[in-house]
């Protein structure tokens, strides 16, 4: 059953800035659904429409079966919100922070006491309840922040970039809490992120959003499969200059249309080539390019990552590439093994 449902949802800010430009999607109960996109794609604006903080310009959205504009107060009772910024009170203890929100959600004193204990346990803050938040570490604050969105056991939690700016260790522990919430409480989680690996590891389904529009949606595997095969990334230049651009343009022209190439995508300093079998394609690519007098400086092969999915659909990288890259030497070894086996 869909617990979030939007229809042509849009927010246009003054100056005709189409932050969110008519999006349709559904999130099922118990799902972790991720909105993946670069900064300024419209992720936060979407969250703020769904959690009633801003009113849509057009279109509609239903959360927990209620219209977010007409039944805003009722929606608020059923949702939790974890913002990008950690919104906790410095001059209060963890417990006081949490208790205040318990009151806002109209819980009675005993229920608040029980929940506070339970939630501190869940986010691993037991023992720090009565300490001032000003003495908390960054990770502890984020966990408290997370806890404050949970006190009323909401049906849906909205998390805006839940791990941005956190160290890898804290990020991993936050992921664990998020998974716990879904498995133990059956909550639905809608999160935004610009971290590929976050969407990949955490989400059941992903919507890729860019310039206010959803450009692809599905499970991580479905999205990766939509590219198919391997991605060979070729760079014909040592520095990114005009000559480099020209090399990339020419490389693109040489490779496009070749039977083993399923697609190409030029970016800044690199050319992504989508092929069915990367190991056998690499020598051919090298040959074709050197035949045109283009010297390949680096060539790498990878399984398609969400990065590549993003690149394919938007024509740009979401940020400095990362993921499971394979070095030239590794490719040679792989190829040798394949030939021997």
């Amino acid at each position, binding site marked *: 059953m869909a617990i979030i449902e939007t229809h042509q949802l849009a927010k246009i800010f003054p100056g005709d800035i189409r932050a969110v430009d008519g999006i349709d999607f559904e999130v099922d109960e118990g799902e972790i659904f991720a909105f993946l996109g670069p900064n300024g794609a419209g992720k936060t604006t979407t969250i703020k429409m769904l*959690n*009633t*903080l*801003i*009113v849509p310009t057009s279109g509609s959205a239903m959360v927990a079966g209620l219209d977010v504009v007409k039944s805003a*107060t009722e929606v*608020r*009772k059923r*949702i939790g*919100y974890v*913002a*990008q*910024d*950690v*919104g*906790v*009170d*410095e*001059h*209060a203890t963890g417990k*006081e922070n949490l208790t*205040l*929100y318990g*009151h*806002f*959600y*109209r819980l009675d004193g005993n229920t608040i006491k029980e929940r506070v204990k339970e939630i501190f346990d869940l986010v691993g803050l037991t023992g720090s309840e009565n300490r*001032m938040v000003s003495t908390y570490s960054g990770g502890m604050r984020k966990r408290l922040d997370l806890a*404050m969105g949970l006190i009323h056991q909401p049906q849906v939690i909205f998390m805006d970039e839940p791990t941005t700016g956190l160290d890898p260790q804290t990020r991993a522990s936050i992921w664990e809490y998020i998974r716990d919430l879904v498995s133990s409480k059956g909550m639905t989680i809608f999160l935004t992120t610009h971290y590929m690996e976050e969407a990949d590891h955490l989400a059941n389904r992903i919507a890729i959003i860019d310039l206010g529009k959803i450009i692809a949606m599905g499970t991580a595997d479905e999205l990766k499969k939509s590219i198919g095969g391997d991605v060979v990334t070729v760079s014909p230049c040592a520095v990114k200059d005009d000559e480099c651009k020209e090399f990339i343009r020419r490389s693109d022209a040489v490779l496009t249309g070749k039977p083993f190439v399923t697609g190409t995508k030029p970016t800044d300093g690199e050319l992504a080539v989508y092929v069915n079998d990367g190991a056998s394609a690499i020598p051919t690519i090298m040959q074709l390019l050197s035949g045109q007098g283009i010297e390949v400086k680096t060539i790498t092969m990878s399984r398609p990552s969400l990065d590549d999915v993003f690149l394919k659909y938007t024509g740009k990288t979401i940020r400095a590439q990362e993921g499971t890259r394979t070095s030239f030497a590794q490719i040679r070894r792989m190829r040798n093994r394949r030939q021997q086996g």
Partner: protein
Amino acid sequence: MNFIRDTWYITLRDLRSRIRMPVFIFMTLFQPILWLVLFTQIFKSLGGMLGPGGGSYLQFFAPGVLVMMALFGSAFAGFGMLMDMDTGILSKMLATPVTRVSIIIGRVLASTIVILIQALIIVIVSLIMGVHLKTGAPGVVFSFFLIALLGLGFAAFSNGLALLLKRQETVMAVTNLLTMPLMFLSSMMMPPEYLPHWLNTVRQINPIDYAVVGVRDLISNGYVWHDLWLSLLVLAALFVVGTTFGTMMFRARAE
């Protein structure tokens, strides 16, 4: 019912976080005393100018300190709201079912409670220093009522300003631009008869002066009903304008 509960929790939160800032406690408790002692020392020789029955400068100025503290305490009340806006606490609160206006009213109430505590300290210190309370305890209560109206009105206005301007620097500049003339274009520090003619005219459109005159009557002169009614009327108007502006700005922010 929810409105009262939510307002109460917001007020408590505000007071609690103030109490936990040592600088704040110092400012709240010692600043009024400092003003009182310092100013009366500086202007000591003016006592003689106040004429027969005018008493000491302390007797003249103590009511002015009450109003001054109320003005400063409330004019900077919006900075708490700015902090909540900057840290994202405000957005977080707005995503809960909390009664919207409680968020601003609770803060304004907290500011006013602090102002009244300061007023009480000033009255006690003034008594120790030798001020004679002309109308006694009932007059003090009356003057506290006037101060509360001023505090509520200005604190709400300051919160509205914070919501409207959004930036610390701008709010600080506008607040300074407003409070300084409000304080000096009044009879707070100098009896009206010693003020230049133009200033005496200007002060009649300054709501702070109405507070000063009212409170000074109650503390030092007695029930001068003509002044008191005017004072009550102007401060009630200030209260209405301030809270209307504050809640309007808040509604605009909360949509």
